[in-house]
């Protein structure tokens, strides 16, 4: 799953024939002047200005402004752009027309094992949160399209009357096509509204998630995916994502400020057990990280450098299960290089390193780690005979077997 920001998300809905508000995405406030000449709606409508970034609670942070004229919109955009939020800069703003409407509805489609589920309610906006029971749904089996009759029936069940039921059914069918053809995983339109001016259905806001793995068959996806945890990616996270995208195997890195325990484990499965083990003992993790699939040593080295650069860490956990085919000697060589660089830069002052691993060339890899003791590292090395997460107990409780 991958989140698409509002601009490109609206672009996808529009591509499949759904009406969306006019919008422009800008990176500098003065771009609005030229755009206003080309787009009459910017001069004629009331406008909404929003920070176009993956930031949660934009409303609370004052990053959403509504009911503005062009001049006020320009001012708001200028205020938002370049604003710094805990080290993350707002670099894009989306400006869209306000649509005068009375009723708000809810329409969504999500991927389930058997195909998809389409959800519809005749209430929308924040109303839907407190009226969850009003949502009507139908299952759409894999490889089939819902019929207009089916959708009209669903609309009627959801409380849509007369012509509107048919209109909603048509809109829902378009949404399903968009979901299906664009490898969607979850698309939620909330609210869906009827435009006061002409009674046309308009998708006012939407959450758009698509399957990042399907990118290879969508050459027109010219957008990058947004983070899904309420803040944009940091530079170090982006650097590792960039490496991850061009290597055999994988490296992953997400920062969690304020933690005391840095993670540098192998394997998508084991890494989560290590995170659990730290938190279960009252530790706080400083990051999530993982490498797997026998990645090249330089990629693991780059990951190690980022992990060593985390602020305020007391220990680094180089954990891992018994690898199937990841070469322990080679990947550890990358980690060791990363450690040496970090130490030379004075980054590992007072940091303990805890190692547990098995797999091809485990003896050589573990011996090389152990040899770091002689170079002045505070390092503790364990092999397969120590259970997976016991090093967390040793590291946090301070007791070794």
């Amino acid at each position: 799953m991958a989140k698409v920001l509002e601009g490109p998300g609206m672009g996808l809905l529009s591509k499949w024939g759904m009406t969306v508000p006019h919008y422009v995405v800008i990176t500098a406030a003065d771009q609005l002047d030229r755009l206003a000449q080309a787009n009459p709606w910017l001069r004629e409508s009331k406008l909404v200005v929003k920070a176009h970034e993956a930031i949660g609670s934009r409303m609370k942070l004052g990053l959403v402004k509504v009911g503005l004229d062009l001049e006020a919109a320009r001012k708001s955009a200028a205020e938002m752009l370049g604003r710094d939020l805990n080290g993350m800069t707002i670099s894009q703003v989306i400006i869209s027309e306000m649509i005068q409407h009375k009723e708000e509805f809810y329409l969504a489609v999500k991927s389930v094992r058997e195909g998809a589920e389409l959800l519809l309610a005749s209430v929308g906006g924040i109303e839907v949160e407190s009226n969850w029971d009003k949502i009507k749904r139908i299952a759409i089996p894999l490889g089939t399209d819902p019929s207009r009759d089916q959708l009209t029936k669903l609309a009627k069940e959801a409380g849509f009357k007369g012509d509107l039921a048919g209109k909603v059914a048509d809109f829902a069918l378009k949404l399903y096509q968009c979901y299906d053809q664009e490898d969607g995983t979850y698309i939620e339109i909330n609210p869906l509204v009827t435009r006061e001016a002409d009674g046309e259905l308009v998708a006012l806001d939407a959450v758009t998630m698509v399957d990042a793995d399907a990118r290879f068959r969508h050459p027109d996806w010219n957008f990058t995916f947004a983070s899904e945890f309420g803040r944009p990616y940091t530079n170090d996270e982006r650097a590792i994502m960039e490496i991850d995208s061009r290597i055999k195997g994988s490296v992953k890195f997400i920062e969690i400020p304020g933690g005391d325990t840095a993670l540098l484990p192998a394997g998508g499965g084991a890494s989560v057990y290590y995170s659990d083990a730290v938190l279960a003992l009252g530790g706080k993790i400083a990051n999530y990280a993982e490498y797997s699939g026998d990645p090249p040593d330089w990629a693991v080295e780059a990951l190690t450098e980022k992990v060593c650069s985390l602020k305020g860490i007391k220990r680094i956990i180089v954990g891992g299960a018994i690898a199937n085919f990841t070469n322990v000697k080679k990947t550890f060589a990358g980690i060791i290089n990363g450690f040496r660089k970090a130490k030379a830069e004075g980054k590992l002052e007072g940091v303990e390193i805890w190692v547990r691993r098995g797999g091809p060339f485990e003896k050589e890899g573990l011996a090389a780690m152990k040899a770091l003791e002689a170079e002045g590292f505070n390092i503790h090395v364990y092999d397969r005979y120590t259970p997976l997460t016991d090093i967390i107990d040793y590291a946090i409780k301070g007791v070794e077997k």
Partner: protein
Amino acid sequence: MSIVANKETRVVIQGGPAGVNAARRMAEFCHLTRQPLHVLAFVFPPDAGKTAEVPFGSELVSIPIFKTMAEATAAFPALNTTLIFVGPDRAFKAAMEALADPKIKLVSMITEGVPEKDSKRLSLEAKKLGKVFNGPSAIGIISAGECRLGVIGGAFDNLILSKLHRPGSFGVITKSGGLSNEIIWICSQFADGITTAIGIGGDAYPGSDYVTYLEMFEKDPQTKAVIIVGEMGGDLEERAAEWFGAAKRRIKLIAVVSGYCQEQLPKGMKFGHAGAKEGQHGEGSARSKADALKKSGAIVPATFGGLGPTIKQVYEEIVAKGLVKPAVDGDAAALPKLPKPVEEAVKSGDVFVEPLIKSTISDDRGDEPLYYGYPASDLINKGYQIPHVMGLLWDKRLITPVEAEIVKRIIMLSADHGPCVSGALTTIIAACAGIQMAQSVAAGLIMIGPRFGGAVTDAGKWFKYAIEKKLSPEDFLEHMKKNVGPVPGIGHRVKSVKNPDKRVKELISFVKSTGIPTPHLDFALSVEKITTAKKDTLILNVDGTIAAVLVDLGWPVESLNGFFILARTIGLIGHWVDQTRNGSRLIRMFNYVVNYASPKRREAPPLEAKGTRVEVREEVLK
């Protein structure tokens, strides 16, 4: 006993290098369990018609590569299973092709990054056909003592350490590939090992889920308990719990779930596996999964660390009940060993290999070549020159600066002698025929012999002989006339006493100016005095002069022609580059410079069975 993969499993692999690597791992398992090779074919269109080589014991087996699945199963009717390694953009098509083949019953996909929609469609298709689709992103399947599909189980040593050469009593189902090995290891340490372990992959919608395999394990009498290693996200663990709680089950279920950390982390944080994501409204959390499993009667240790002791307890219970006999492991040393590559065996001192060749001049095994022990960079940094390198490699000694200067002059004066000499001419003809540098230069070098440039060694040899035997110039010439023929190094086609070779004069005067003893050169010059008195052109030529000087300096006689070969290579390369740059056209001889001395044109006689050849010959002779 086992599920899904057993001794009858025969495998085709769809994919390139990653597939071949897996086949090698699978061959190691077949070798360990003393079975024939399970992998029979590859399907990989880019290499169709070729074979892939897989070490099997001490042999190298060639496995055919086909373009289509239909071709593979037609050639090997025993095939019943495929492993897919092709890229995510081709994985769907490859799997559909495999599912469509009536022979293939199990499709296991290792490929990562396959779109969800594709997985879902494949899973549906497999269900319709009553086949098993495992994966994507699945590490593989292994049945102890029976069959290995993919790299699951890890390195050869790990197979033995984890008792994978013989069946145990525990089934394993995991999403994580790395943890599958860990659980297998734990089962072998805390109990009697596994029956079958399956990696189902960490995607959101795996083709087969826990329930698919729990049902099979329930029917496998050898399997007494199953361990599932779950993680947050999706509802597969809940489904497993539902299945387990729905009826009285023969097998015991042990489960761990990861992702408690989610409770303390930013919402929506993405972890290693695509499927490891909590739902929008808290469903699929680690806690709710663990609770559902506990409720269904499964044993759920609080942490991953609790798995070992739990497995041990369950094992002791089933042993106490008499359901299994405690495993008695034979001598691990009696198991087949993986033959070591020779290089490794030599390193560890396990074998002695009689060397094929001996080298006394250089060694390339370190980070740079050693010339008779001296690192090349060390020589360069200390100002040594090409003649010193020649001294080390040709005569195993560091020559003096004076000697180096003489050698340098010898090389310089022999580097080229224009385009007309036979060596250069041959190189030029070859260059004009469009032949590459190495071949053209080699063609020119082939011309070096008794009549062109190749008399240095022989000249040196005989001058040395004369000095050793203390012959006078007269006796020497007499000896040569009687036993050898013309004296090598004496005589020139164009040069003479009146038209001396300036190169020779310069070399001799320089050598003399250095004050080194020159008995051979002096001897050669006294021989020249006698020969030139007889005939003007019987001078000491450049070959003879070089030979005498080099023997005076102590170079071995065997190396002497090398000075000319080395020097003239410089010239030949120059001629090749020159002709090539000029874009010279093919050279053809002119017939007016050929003396055509063959018979005139005539009619061939009719071919007869006997005697024809003799008659013709006689006629020619007339």
